[in-house]
């Protein structure tokens, strides 16, 4: 007699077909989708390039700075780059609307440049990378982050040491 119960349930609950593409589709909250890159948080440590299994992430040295390139058409959504990113500069979103016609193939990429700046301490050429790994104590104020952004690694180390001694 179980089938009668199922039959009535089906009559009441209606069709189980998802209405997509004519309506919205449900997406799980922890769905691993399109990669997002936040340039202001990147420390240029290149850990994501190391761990990216299909080689979707690449760093190039250009005259303007270090260029971060990521091609969505090679990404396998494993999430290793997000896991290893010390500053949460790379995040996986739940966006899966990635089907595209072939003329947009090479537009499906992230191209951002971490610019070269002149170090305010010693006038050397250095990368304007974020100094603040997530969850590291002591946290910096916004002004301190801006100051450290314009320092070379050696001057930054010195500035951090002096800051620590002062507090």
């Amino acid at each position, binding site marked *: 007699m179980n089938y009668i119960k199922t039959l009535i349930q089906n009559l009441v609950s209606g069709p189980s077909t998802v209405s997509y593409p004519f309506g919205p589709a449900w997406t799980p909250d922890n769905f691993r989708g399109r990669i997002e890159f936040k340039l202001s948080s990147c420390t240029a440590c290149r850990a994501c390039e190391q761990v990216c299994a299909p080689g979707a992430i690449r760093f190039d040295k250009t005259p303007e700075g270090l260029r971060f390139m990521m091609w969505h058409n090679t990404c396998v959504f494993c999430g290793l780059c997000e896991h290893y990113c010390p500053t949460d500069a790379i995040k996986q979103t739940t966006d899966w609307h990635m089907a595209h016609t*072939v003329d947009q*193939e090479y537009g499906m990429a992230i191209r951002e440049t971490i610019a070269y700046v002149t170090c305010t301490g010693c006038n050397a050429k250095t990368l304007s990378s974020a100094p603040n790994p997530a969850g590291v104590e002591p946290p910096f104020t916004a002004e301190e982050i801006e100051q450290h952004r314009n320092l070379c690694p050696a001057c930054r180390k010195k500035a951090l040491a002096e800051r620590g001694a002062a507090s």
Partner: protein
Amino acid sequence: MNLKQMISAQARRMAARSPWIYRINAGSCNGCDVECATTALIPRYDVERLGCQYCGSPRHADIVLVTGPLTARVKESVLRVYAEVPDPKVTVAVGVCPISGGIFRDGYAVLAPLSKYIPVDVNVPGCAPRPQAIIEGIAQAIEIWRGRL
């Protein structure tokens, strides 16, 4: 307009509603094939709402779904089967493998990208793409196919 032209125009109008789909496995790991089968066979995703139907013979097909990175071993077979699909046809690359090689990129036995050998029209990236994403790609392919009729 003579009778032949009338029949031809009518056939075009009717055919535009129901493209048939054919799947080619070009050395896929079977993940994308499972998702393609899910898209067609499970009522939850039901690609037949778009008028599509999976067919068993390449000679009946209008839209070709290709999965897999095109391994050296299946290359000749894939090209032969693809040549049997009558024009006008639309090719959809399902998964990242046929688009760029994905995890097998630059492998010695892998000839990806597929577009070096076959004119691809729509890309559906994902590893594997979820069924809704495949439906999205097929919907784009149907639009292209209607333009070619």
